[in-house]
């Protein structure tokens, strides 16, 4: 062995330990929950059509609560749009729920930040209450059986490779 062998082996071990560590952990800011049935979520979209979360039973659903006045919601929304552009083709469903704002506000906000996602209106804020988010924004991942399995803490970079791969893993596993 040359004099360089030991430093090279040490470096390779450190790199592999780092990679292994990052793969076994959840993406930053995600909490694994003891599965709980998702609350009844029946809302109208911005065009007045009714949506019920049970329609998406059998699919993994990304449920997101937001409001236009909330700074972290504004910062997070473009990442959700980008994530959605990629993941809808892979089978993910989305329920993008606005908390207690009117159609004009929601329409003008989403036109700029997430024009391709169907907006659901929790007009009086009572559905949001049932989910008991820690704050706004709030995101949850629902499994194919309609159970909440993950919750995100605040806004997350959903379009980042780590989060996309994590969602892909759930789509495969569930």
């Amino acid at each position, binding site marked *: 062995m040359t004099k*360089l062998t030991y*430093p090279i082996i040490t*470096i390779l071990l*450190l790199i592999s330990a780092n990679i292994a560590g990052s793969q076994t952990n959840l993406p930053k800011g995600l909490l694994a929950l003891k599965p709980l049935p998702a609350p009844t979520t029946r809302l109208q979209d911005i065009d007045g059509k009714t949506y019920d979360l049970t329609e998406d039973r059998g699919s993994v659903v990304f449920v997101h609560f937001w409001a236009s*006045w*909330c700074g972290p919601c504004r910062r997070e929304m473009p990442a959700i749009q980008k994530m959605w552009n990629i993941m809808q083709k892979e089978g993910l469903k989305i329920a993008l729920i606005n908390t207690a704002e009117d159609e004009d506000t929601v329409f003008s906000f989403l036109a700029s930040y997430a024009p391709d996602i169907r907006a659901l209106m929790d007009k009086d*804020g009572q559905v*949001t209450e049932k989910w008991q988010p820690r*704050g706004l924004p709030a995101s949850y991942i629902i499994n194919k059986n309609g159970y909440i399995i993950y919750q995100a803490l605040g806004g997350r970079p959903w379009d980042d490779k780590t989060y996309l791969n994590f969602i892909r893993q759930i789509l495969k596993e569930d």
Partner: protein
Amino acid sequence: MPVKTILAILLIILVISPITIINPAYAGNKNQYESENIRIRVIPRSPQQIAAFYEARGFQKNMLDKIKQYCFITIYVRNKGKHIIWHDLGKWTFQAGTKKIQRIDRHQLKQTWQKMGIPLPHQSTFRWTLLPEQLDFRPEEGEGGNIVLPATNENIRITSQFNLYKNNSDDIVKLILDNIQCKK
């Protein structure tokens, strides 16, 4: 530079990279506190500022008039550490000048809005702009919101309290945020 030296430098970088840099408390900014584990930011709002925010959300005049009678202070808390920080707003104390004052909690405010017949969407928006009453702040979690106090011209002292372990009174972290003004 010899290859051996480059490898040695690389090794040093890899070994020291996980070390966390500890930030000292902010100097010269009385409305902000920062330590290794927590960051708290305090932003007092004038009645005009806070009323303008809610007015832009379409709140009706009687609700705005009531809001203007209170003192709103926006608090932002971030857990910078690696362990849960337990927060209970009920344990915080507030003082205006030398007198203790009582915070107006979300239940009292909800009752006020209900008595006034405020529409549910506005009650809901108002509720989400308040600081949570209780929360187990997870590592890297940040939440913010308003606390509501009776209006006062005196300097306000907020004694905030966080616990590093649930229901353990030995691990209390007390932070005093002083000379906060609720501008009229």
